[in-house]
């Protein structure tokens, strides 16, 4: 892992901490769902970085599956907020 990757990781860590603050504090359920969606998108970029740094290309498959599951999950949460399951 090179120094540049570590700097990138540090920037993403600061962003994640700020998003977790919104996830914990968020006044109602839509705020929390939105913060969780943002964190998920950040972690997809993180998985792609892992695929580069650890030289394992299966992390890309993990990232694709994670993106699909988060999309379906947000749609289900939106439907639940709108009129119940």
């Amino acid at each position, binding site marked *: 892992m090179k120094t540049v990757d570590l700097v990138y990781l540090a920037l993403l860590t600061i962003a994640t901490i700020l998003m977790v*603050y919104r996830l914990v504090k968020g006044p109602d359920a839509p705020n929390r769902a939105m913060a969780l969606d943002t964190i998920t998108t950040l972690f997809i970029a993180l998985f792609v970085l892992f695929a580069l740094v650890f030289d394992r290309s299966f992390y890309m498959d993990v990232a*694709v599956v994670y993106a699909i599951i988060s999309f379906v999950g947000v749609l289900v949460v939106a439907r639940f907020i709108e009129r119940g399951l």
Partner: protein
Amino acid sequence: MGINVIIGYILMFIGAFFFLVSAIGLVRLPDLYTRMQAATKATTLGAISSILGIGLMKEEILVKSIVLAVFILLTAPISGSALIRASYKAKSPLTNKTVVDRLKEKEGETK
């Protein structure tokens, strides 16, 4: 160190910058609808820029990273729109600095 690695790192740090902007917006903006602005647009650009930048550096993951970027570009607006519509129906409060609410006016006309 080839030219693709340099371009890749530049794109990566543009992505990290937009992630940071999005996180600051999530903390500081006043209500759900303005926060959704930061959460959807800035995060989409940050993710696409980061993924394409990292994919440029290594040839084996380039195709999959392009597929992933296109997938995020297609699905992030849909999920954001669904979530914000649901929370408007559930009457999530607007900030008291709100000037205009077109959706409310439109629904008032049809009734």
